[in-house]
């Protein structure tokens, strides 16, 4: 499995200004493209592959087939739901420029450290007044360790607070080298049973649990998080095991995230093998009962 992209450029699929739920204050969240996990409930399936992709949004399509005229690879399909034959597509992007209806888009853009720095500094004044900063998210930001080693020192020189969200699947060196530049880490836990983890995320959880223990020792501002996926990881057993892991690592709090099925709507437009989970969006009921379970066992939920 590829856990590392040894490049000085990063592929980023979104930069969201005015994020107020990804750490303290007003933040700019950078979504890196590429992830070693394939969680079935993923809300950003377009983040999985590390390369640039073409995505199709069928509600906007006017069936004019201007895209077909310009495609050098003959990769445009004329069906209603699917426009791109990904096996032929070279992601040259010509169809995207040709489509006047915004029905085709390139997902992912290459950034070097300096241009990304300038982009995030646009909201520096807002960071300063709100004690906010930037959040590295994804995908899995640690995959871009080489890039971050160049980017983060620049950011820190400007006095910007840095939070990183990670799935925990990384080579220790990749995080260790950037640790001095991080102010906060959101660490996602999903399932404690390794086999189940394999089934729902595509990988086992051995490395993730190991990395958590290492970080707990080496980094002071670590915040565990868990997406509450109804009936899948909100079981008594899984929560009890999670509590045990947290306590073992002297972690006293967990941040719970409610489940949305918004990601599933994106699946047909991109190249993916992911299948919909077919669960309804949590209107808060599951989150609340999971919260109770944690709190009953002495873990404070935030």
């Amino acid at each position, binding site marked *: 499995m590829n856990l590392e992209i040894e490049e000085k450029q990063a592929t980023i699929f979104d930069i*969201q*200004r*005015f*994020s*107020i*739920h990804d750490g303290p*204050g*007003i933040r700019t969240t950078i979504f890196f493209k590429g992830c070693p996990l394939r969680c079935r409930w993923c809300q950003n399936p377009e983040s999985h592959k590390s390369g640039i992709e073409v995505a199709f949004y069928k509600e906007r399509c*006017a069936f*004019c087939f201007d895209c077909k005229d310009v495609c050098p690879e003959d990769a445009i399909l004329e069906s209603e739901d699917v426009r791109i034959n990904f096996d032929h597509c070279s992601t040259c992007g010509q169809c995207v420029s040709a489509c*006047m*209806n*915004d029905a085709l888009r390139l997902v992912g853009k290459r950034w070097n450290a300096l241009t990304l720095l300038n982009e995030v500094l*646009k*909201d520096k*004044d*807002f960071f*300063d*007044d*709100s004690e*906010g900063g930037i959040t590295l998210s994804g995908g899995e930001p640690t995959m871009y360790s080489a890039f971050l080693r160049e980017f983060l020192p620049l950011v820190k020189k400007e006095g910007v607070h840095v939070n990183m969200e990670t799935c925990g699947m990384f080579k220790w060196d990749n995080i260790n080298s950037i640790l001095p530049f991080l102010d906060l880490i959101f660490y996602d836990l999903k399932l404690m049973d390794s086999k189940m983890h394999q089934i729902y995320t595509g990988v086992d959880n051995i490395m993730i649990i190991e990395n958590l223990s290492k970080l707990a020792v080496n980094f002071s501002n670590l915040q565990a998080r868990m997406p509450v996926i109804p009936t899948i990881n909100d079981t008594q057993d899984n929560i009890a095991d999670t509590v045990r892991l947290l306590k073992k690592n002297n972690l006293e709090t967990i941040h719970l995230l409610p489940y949305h099925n918004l990601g599933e709507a994106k699946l047909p437009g991109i190249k993916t093998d992911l299948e919909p989970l077919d669960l309804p969006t949590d209107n808060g009921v599951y989150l609340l009962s999971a919260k109770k379970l944690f709190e009953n066992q002495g873990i404070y939920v935030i």
Partner: protein
Amino acid sequence: MSQDRIDRIKNAVRTSRPGICTERALIWTRYFKNKENRKKHPSIQMAESLSDVLNKKSIKIYPDELIAGNFSSKRVGGSVFPELHGVVVMQDLFSFVKRETNPLEISKQEIWQLIKIIPFWLFRFLGFKAYRSKIDTFRFIADQLNARYYFINESGGIAHLAPDYEKLARVGTEGIILEVETLQEKVLENTEQWYFYESVKIIARGLARFGKRYSDLAFQMAEGESDPVRKQELLDISKVCERVPEKGAVTFREALQSIFLAQIAINLESLDNAISPGRMDNYLYPYYEKDLKSGALTREKAKELVSAFSIKMSEIVPVFSKLITKFHGGMFNGQVVTVGGIGRDGKDASNELSYIFLEVMDKLRMRQPNYHARIHKEAPGKYHDKIFEILSKGGNSPALYNDDVIVETLVRHGYDLPDARDYTAVGCVEPVCQGKSFSSTDAALFNVPIMLELALNQGRRFGSLLQAGPKTMAVSKMTSMGDVKQAFETQHGHFTERLIKDLQAIERANAAYHPTPLTSMLLDGCLENGFCSTSGGAVYNFSGIQCVGPVETGDALYAIDQAVFQDRKLTLPKLVGLLKQDLHDEKWRVYLRRLDKFGNDNEKVDDYTLYVLDTFTGNLNGRMNTRGGRYTTGLYSVTSHQYFGEVTGALPNGRRKGESLSAGIAPSNGQDRLGPTAMLSSVNRIDATNFANGLNLNVKWDSNTIRGETGRLALKNIFKTYFRRGGMQVQFNVFDPKTLLEARDNPDAYPNLLVRVSGYSAYFNDLTPEMKDEIIRRTYISV
């Protein structure tokens, strides 16, 4: 305080259907039909006819009330001003009851009474008298009735002031008469000044008598009252009105009562718009403090009185024709109450009354008054906390004003520093000095994008052969953005000149035929100078012209630059051809819409909006009105962006013919794609100090974004940055988008949904269907 009482009064006002009151129109007409009266000096005419109205109009004290005074014969009502815009308004007489937007109750008999006075005013109303030549007169009236390029509000009167209520409360009409008598002795009899002083004395006496009438009424009502508690309340009202407004107020309650009666009277004098009590927390505080000390008042009791006063401000509505409603929708009289801010000495002037007003505002959430809060760097933390707590709970008020920028702006435009510090907004967002400015802040509204339409068609509208503006270069000959700008500037300059010519004619007509002695009596400078405010007697005399649609125009220019000169996807004639066909080719429309727009923190795009603003302020620079003040620019549009949108052709930014323009300085609908920080960064590129007539930035949040502690903090902090970087003003619309859709489809279910339109709050149901849709469409900012 008795919350029940306040709830009952509020409910009575809220459930009353607004109506038209004929009293002022009829009494005024009777006065002027008398030939002897018509021979008198205009100042005397105005003072006498207004006194007549105050003396003869029906007066009422409603159940539970503590502050007496009624604007009109209806619980919620508005008056007709036949000598001003009344004739224009009366063309709608038969449709008031049935019209969809802002319907107004009026009986058949009342309609008939008004019809009978039309012939008398038909060739006597102000707009008709503005020009000597008949050709100019008819051109002007036709322009007004079919506004395309600009709309002049001043033909309905000037108003728009924050009267010196501090002085009225302190010395009473008695004190003012004493002052005037001394001044009058120094001038020759039968001179302009002498007549002016004479008129002030007449109306001062008229106002004093108005108080006595309520005193008598309350006394009579008390005699017939069986409930001993209410009986005592009525006797108290009688005692208060016996003293004020004639005498200087001694108590907090007397001060409020004195001010309210004057508020009614000024609203009956000329245009009933934007008569603003202003910094009430500031000038009422000495009364509050004294009463509290003496034990005559408690905080709760003060809150009750403020609530009673505040509700009464919603008892007035403007009587506008359908046309005027398009410019000024939402039953809005623009009476502003301002809290907080620095004092004349530069130190924070907020006090306990500021909090009382904020609490009352939050509790009542009514259409009027229009609550504004001043913000500055040194304001106490709890003041900021209170405001953002209210806003994050979903309140649309108060709108926020940045002292640090506004004071600098006013000084730059000629205010003395202490006067600038003593500003309050009137109407929507326009800063004036309390008691010293007679600034016609809503003199006119100017349609900027239509100048570009003319520039792209040699001075003609798309599809028209009429040469409306100067003949500028044909697009086929234009080879650079420089050529496009040149044509735009020529058209803009031409219509600015025409506007100023029309405005000055109306300004002179106001001075000659409609002086305002009561207004002048409460404006510093008028008495000292011996001149009416309409003749430039006040200390400050600005006129504000609103720049409407600068953002669309900037986006349109950027789109031309991009599509024609950078991408070279279109030639200029081809682009104009598309516009003339109203962009029916969807492909090109989408292409144009997708080009970058103002509001996304993109300097290249934003620069075009800055260019449009510079052109506008440049045209007004150095121009003076006939009262000796400067023409200044306002960046707010009330609801005229909707109307001007309706009459403006397709634009190169991908906007079709008839679609609304954006409000104030907000990005064009749905075009701020990068969220609020990027949007505010674009707005912060504008040098707000160029806009002495105020600026309106309307930001809409869905309630989810700003919910809870995280939301409240984000809201507070994002505007901390905006203000620190030079932002002048901001107001909020906070709601769940679903609520609005439901309210549109099922108006009965949401009778009280309050939204902010342009510096003021209006009930959603009072808006036109297009305005409702626009509010819904306007950018939702959410995470």
